[in-house]
């Protein structure tokens, strides 16, 4: 079942990417130009650079962009290596254009101490695909009671803290987590869900009513988000809201930003691609937390991305075994994989549909998450380390089981016709082709 090597890896000391269009999401511009890479760094950028004996990759008709950052994914190692490993997950990430990923700490056991952070970094370095920036647990064992050793985890390389998968129910614990993280200038990432309002994992609406499914109202997300932005205001701390799915949550975040609260937010491609109409199939591949909501919510999420209320796009890549997903809807664990489809869905539903420019989509996959987490990514320009992706915006492809590099296959997009894909990534001296 291991097929993590379905990816070509080549080392080159000198590489010329010729004839492409280079996207700079910092300057919000895209310009034709060749890119010369030597010893893992960009050394030249401009029209018609000489190959000087370098290996040449023809990029005519293609776009080059900084490698993407996925600030929210689940790599399942340690604990559920049958579903995903750091190796298979970071390989899938690269194939989706993500040169850096931030795994959430809800592994078994949870990443709630420095040794676990170091383990993930060591594994990622050993397999050599996407870079990993672990997110540590806010509280010990993600139980929402006592703070974990946040300082030690920052020292080991953790970039943010979250009990993702569950919300921090006790407001005093949330307050303390927000306050304590200020000392290390790292954000708390909130999974917003008022647990007492959760009867089930269908969005409470016409569909759940028709189908008799136990449901959760959008209020469960928005009310917790409202509490958390107020606590962020109280403490003057940095808060990041994970996987925004509801129109009313977008409103809460917009309101908080207008008040000057230091809050940022992400959403995931499935929230701007799918709705609760999918419930009618009783297919657990559509089961995800927070749930797919209505067309009104889907449009509001897109509007939030367009007007900047939602800063970043993350995948919430959540691999699950086939046996666990091939079951009654309510028995299956929530989560869908997304690393390998995120860019194409963003390109189709946000760029091709006219909501935003390609540059703005790439900002939400690069500059925005890197700023929130303080990651040292850089434009494709001389003097910078090579870390870029090659995009073919005209590529047409179909999401199929054969194309998936993740160890899990729980994507609701199987069979979907996609437009635009990542064809290569360069990280340092290494070039990956897909």
């Amino acid at each position, binding site marked *: 079942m291991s097929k993590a090597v379905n990816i070509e890896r080549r080392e080159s000391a000198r590489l010329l990417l010729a004839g492409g269009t280079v996207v700079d999401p910092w300057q919000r511009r895209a310009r034709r130009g060749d890119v010369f890479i030597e010893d893992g760094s960009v050394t030249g950028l401009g029209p018609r650079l000489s190959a000087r004996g370098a290996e040449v990759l023809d990029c005519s008709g293609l776009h080059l962009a900084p490698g993407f950052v996925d600030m929210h994914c689940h790599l399942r190692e340690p604990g559920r290596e049958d579903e995903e490993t750091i190796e298979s997950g970071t390989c899938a990430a690269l194939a989706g254009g993500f040169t850096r990923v931030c795994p959430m700490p809800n592994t078994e056991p949870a990443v709630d101490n420095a040794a676990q952070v170091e383990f993930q970094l060591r594994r990622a370095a050993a397999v050599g695909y996407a870079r990993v920036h672990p997110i540590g647990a806010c509280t010990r064992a993600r139980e929402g009671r006592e703070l974990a050793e946040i300082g030690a985890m920052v020292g080991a390389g953790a970039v943010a803290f979250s009990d993702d998968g569950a919300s921090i129910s006790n407001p005093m614990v949330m307050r303390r987590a927000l306050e304590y993280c200020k000392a290390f200038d790292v954000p708390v990432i909130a999974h917003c869900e008022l647990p007492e309002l959760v009867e089930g994992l269908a969005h409470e609406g016409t569909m759940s009513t028709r189908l008799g*499914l136990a449901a959760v109202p959008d209020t469960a997300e928005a009310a917790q988000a409202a509490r958390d932005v107020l606590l962020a205001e109280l403490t003057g701390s940095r808060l990041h809201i994970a996987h925004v799915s509801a129109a009313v949550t977008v409103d809460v975040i917009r309101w908080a930003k207008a008040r000057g609260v230091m809050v940022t937010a992400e959403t995931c491609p499935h929230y701007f691609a799918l709705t609760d109409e999918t419930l009618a199939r*009783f297919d657990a591949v559509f089961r995800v937390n927070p749930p797919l909501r209505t067309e009104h919510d889907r449009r509001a999420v897109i509007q939030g991305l367009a007007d900047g209320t939602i800063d970043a796009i993350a995948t919430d890549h959540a691999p699950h075994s086939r046996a666990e997903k091939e079951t009654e809807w309510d028995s299956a664990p929530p989560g869908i994989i997304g690393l390998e489809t995120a860019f194409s869905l963003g390109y189709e539903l946000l760029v091709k549909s006219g909501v935003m420019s390609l540059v703005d989509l790439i900002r939400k996959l690069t500059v925005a998450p890197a700023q929130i987490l303080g990651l040292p990514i850089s434009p494709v320009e001389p003097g910078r380390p090579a870390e870029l992706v090659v995009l073919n915006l005209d590529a047409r492809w179909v999401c199929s089981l054969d194309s998936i590099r993740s160890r899990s296959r729980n994507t609701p997009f199987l069979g979907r016709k996609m437009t635009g894909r990542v064809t290569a990534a360069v990280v340092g001296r290494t070039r990956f082709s897909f």
Partner: protein
Amino acid sequence: MKARLKHLLGIEQLTREDILAVLDQAGSFREVLSRPIPVVPALRGRTVVNLFFEPSTRTLTSFQLAASRLSAQCVNFSRVASSVTKGESLLDTCRNIEAMGVDGIVLRHSLPGAPHFLARHTRAFVVNAGDGAHEHPTQALLDAFTLRARLGDLAGRRVLIVGDIAHSRVARSNILALTKLGARVAVCGPPTLVPRFCEELGCEVFYRLDRVLYEVDVVNMLRVQLERIGASSFPTAREYRDHYGLTAARLSRLRPEVIITHPGPVNWGVEMDFEVSQHPSAVVLDQVTNGVAVRMAVLFILAGAERTDKDHE
């Protein structure tokens, strides 16, 4: 229905004509049931499994009798399992049963969509005998059969469903079936037990029983889940009876020709006073008898459809 439907997953998938075809077929089987030897050889050699993951007496017995009166072989696989009980998955159970060679599976399950899931993974025909709060199509069909036996055409008739609408598969299937047959359906219950989006199911919503009870042709009383008493849905059984129960006092004010149904089993003294059982308007036991005939019709039609599929292979 013979040509189109391989499974009976819900009323939602049925047209008015499908429903009438089942009811007509049930009419002939109802006649069979009144014979001294109430058995026909229609499904001889066929095997039906009753796969019940929830406790049930009357529905299970009704399906069992329906199969045996069609001369089908019938086995029961009962296992009380909740959504959280781990063990053999539904898919594995189903594959094992299928490997033993069965024509049809009658599934009762606590989770909505379980029969739909099963139908995607089996060659046997699947009958939904109740899936969580979603649908209970044979109950709705037998209710429609019972009402038509009394009222004839249901077009324009007013039907009121009273009780825990939110958690009731009987309510959902009845709303769908009755509206497809032209009836006007209203529901009544405490707002804690009526879903927020209930009107979008195609029914009127009332929270005060006395404002609607005396205008309707049919009152369908639902069973109250006594475990919902308390903080979650309503304070006490006494208060429920006062506001939503079909009490003796309310019974005396009903229109004389009204029909009272209940899917059973009844909590006497909560949703209905015992006096209702003596009342000529109550057709609860007719429902039970008609249930066998309706289930015979469903098995007969689906087994026939399934055979047609095989013939085409």
